[in-house]
């Protein structure tokens, strides 16, 4: 085999002809700049075609973007190498993330999904003497880990609008090891403003000099509320504060398992002591790198989500059901009956919605936002299950 065939990806000749319209839409320039000859057409992949509508796990139904897919395809061929030994390497990805946040690689840790960081943070920062503060309901994983490690968990109830009780959480921070703040919150979908967040951190610091504050921003890219702003800058400048983000949601890479944390270098150093040695897979690192460099992608996916979400939320609201103010790719609806009942009735019609979220499982269901077409097919199913007449499916 000639040297040139062996270079880079070797199989470049096999790339399908580009679809000009899509490349225009997705910004080929960025793609070519960053990926060189690996740059290929940005393609759209269809969601599952087997009839099932899976709106249970807050996934992006389209999956990875074209540039990310191309990076994955190329990455598979060099997957014999650990992710430090292929470029873009873990280090390159950390540098790119640092650059996006105007900071240094020492402020960034990678994870096998943000889940790994949610596992490692309570391990690093809570113990039998230093409790965890979280909300109820909220993303459960940190609480589960803390309990396993024998740490107490103080779960502060959300208010009636599904918003975190930040004052209550700050009060509970006295003597805590860590406070987990899911913003926007899963499953309630609500968000707090940057002003709220800054005041919260100040208030935490007034009762605890060293409790670590973890802002889970898994749904950051989907937020449209103008009062919201990431806690990243605050985290970078404040010891003991960090954020986590993921490529699983807006970026459509839940199956690829790449997430990251950003914060003060001291906090990140402690956290990274718990990181798996090679936590991120080689093709996934390349895909995340490509995704971050795909200009225009986030606003487009955000817009798509807002449109499909509006149709869905409007349906429930018009029928007199309360829907919390969603800043995510899912909605939390008061269906006035047990989620389990609703879930199994929907499942019978091939629509999968979210699981129980205690303590609200007797009244609320979480529904992820799929494609517009999926939501238009799901709405009549919701209607039939809840006894609401619908013609939304046909109306558009």
């Amino acid at each position, binding site marked *: 085999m000639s040297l040139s065939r062996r270079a880079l990806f070797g199989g470049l000749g096999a*790339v399908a002809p580009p679809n000009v319209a899509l490349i225009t839409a997705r910004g080929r320039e960025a793609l070519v700049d960053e990926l060189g000859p690996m740059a290929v057409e940005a393609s759209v992949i269809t969601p599952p075609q087997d009839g099932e509508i899976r709106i249970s796990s807050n996934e992006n139904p389209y999956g990875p973007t074209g540039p990310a897919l191309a990076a994955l395809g190329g990455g598979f061929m060099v997957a*014999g190498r650990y992710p430090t030994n292929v470029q873009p390497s873990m280090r390159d990805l950390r540098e790119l993330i640092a650059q996006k946040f105007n900071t240094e690689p020492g402020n960034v840790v990678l994870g096998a999904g943000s889940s790994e960081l949610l596992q490692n943070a309570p391990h690093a920062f809570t113990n039998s003497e230093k409790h965890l503060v979280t909300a109820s309901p909220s993303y459960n994983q940190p609480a589960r880990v803390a309990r396993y490690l024998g740490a107490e968990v103080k779960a502060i109830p959300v208010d009636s609008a599904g918003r975190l009780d930040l004052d209550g959480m700050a009060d509970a921070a006295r003597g805590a090891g860590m406070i987990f703040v899911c913003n926007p919150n899963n499953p309630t979908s609500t968000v707090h403003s940057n002003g709220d967040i800054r005041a919260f951190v100040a208030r935490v610091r007034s009762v605890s000099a060293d409790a670590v504050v973890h802002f889970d921003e898994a749904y950051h890219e989907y937020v449209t509320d103008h009062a919201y702003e990431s806690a990243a800058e605050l985290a970078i400048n404040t010891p003991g504060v960090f954020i986590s983000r993921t490529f699983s949601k807006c970026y459509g890479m839940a199956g690829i398992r790449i997430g990251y944390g950003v914060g003060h270098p001291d906090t990140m150093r402690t956290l990274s002591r718990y990181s798996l040695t090679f936590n991120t897979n080689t093709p996934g690192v390349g895909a995340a790198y490509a995704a971050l460099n795909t200009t225009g992608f986030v606003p487009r996916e955000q817009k798509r989500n807002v449109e499909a979400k509006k149709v869905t939320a409007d349906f429930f609201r018009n029928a007199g059901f309360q829907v919390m103010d969603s800043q995510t790719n899912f909605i939390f609806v008061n269906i006035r009956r047990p989620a389990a009942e609703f879930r199994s009735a929907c499942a019978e019609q091939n629509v999968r919605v979210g699981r129980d979220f205690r303590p609200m499982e007797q009244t609320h269901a979480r529904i992820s936002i799929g494609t517009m077409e999926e939501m238009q097919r799901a709405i009549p199913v919701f209607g039939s299950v809840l006894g609401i007449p619908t013609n939304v499916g046909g109306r558009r």
Partner: protein
Amino acid sequence: MTTKNSMKVSRRTFVKTTGIGVSAAAIMAYDGPRSIARAWSMSLPQEERPMLLHNNENPLGPGRKVVEAMNEALSNGRGGRYPGSGGLPEALARAGGIPQDNLMIGNGSTQLLRTCTQVFTSPTRPLVTGAPSYEECAQYANNIGHPVEEVLLDDHMMLDLNAMADASQGAGMVFLNNPNNPTGTLWGADAVGSFIERVRSESPETMIVVDEAYHDYVTEPSHSTQIPRALSDTHVIVARTFSKAHGMAGMRIGWVVAHPDAISKMREWHLGLTLNIPSLLGAATSILDRERIEEEVARNTAARAYTIDWFEQHGMDATDSQCNFIFARTGMNAQEFRSGCAARNIRVGRNFPPYQEAWARISISTIEDMRTATRVFGEVLGVQAKAEAA
């Protein structure tokens, strides 16, 4: 054979484009196995990229069928979905008769070794390990404040099984790397069996974790896997990985076989959400692709023999490695050797105390790469081949 006519398959694309009105998926075609000993880099020309002989990777990467399966894993937006088990438990059942209750899959064997260390050691129940041996468990135990007892190798640079069994009294877990990294050597089935029986009878609470990361590469006939024992013994766990002979180090996937009781203890802690979907489908394909593994092992065996031979012909020696790396007595300080090689664009293994004064660990790449590499070693070590001189 996939190796020979790689160009013929190079035009195929492997992700199906089944959607309506959807553009063709942009996926690289598999171009046949080829050495990726030189790091894949966007910025450096091929000839300037370093040859990587420092992490015991498979220089050819995953086989054609595996690459196909991984691309297939991305079809229909599946890369955007949280993975299920990807058919891997079923494939392992088919390949090795391993019931699902005895199985746990992890982000490389690294994650599983850590889970074992987390769950089976404690501040009062130490980890016992060889030294030097694979450090993952010891490092992690250190991180979480659990004590570690290191047992030096014996005079033949073999894991000192007697001393390790002695040290295991009251230990939470003993880590047995067989064959052992960095020395490459192994204990045969009889010796391992007696070791396990001794620990089981003298310290019945101690978990015995046998790391068989390099199992596929072993050519020594006295070796056998401890998987059958792990299926029934409550205190024996075998760790395996797809990172070595299967060529999937970058995919991050490994597995353990253990008694269901041990598995359920591990599950209470283990984070299941670390596995990516292409790795699951790729591994499921790879485990059933014996032909590819046989080719890979044949390649490694020949290149390993060539490299050990080169050292011996030049008046140095090497251990009887059963792995995809060798441990050679260069007579030079490992750091110095490493820098010398690095200056000539080859990266070799790090220091392995207490052998850092004279020994180097060198991963085995293709035989062509090893010819280049040994020429460089000759320069760095200032030796001349007897054969060449003659």
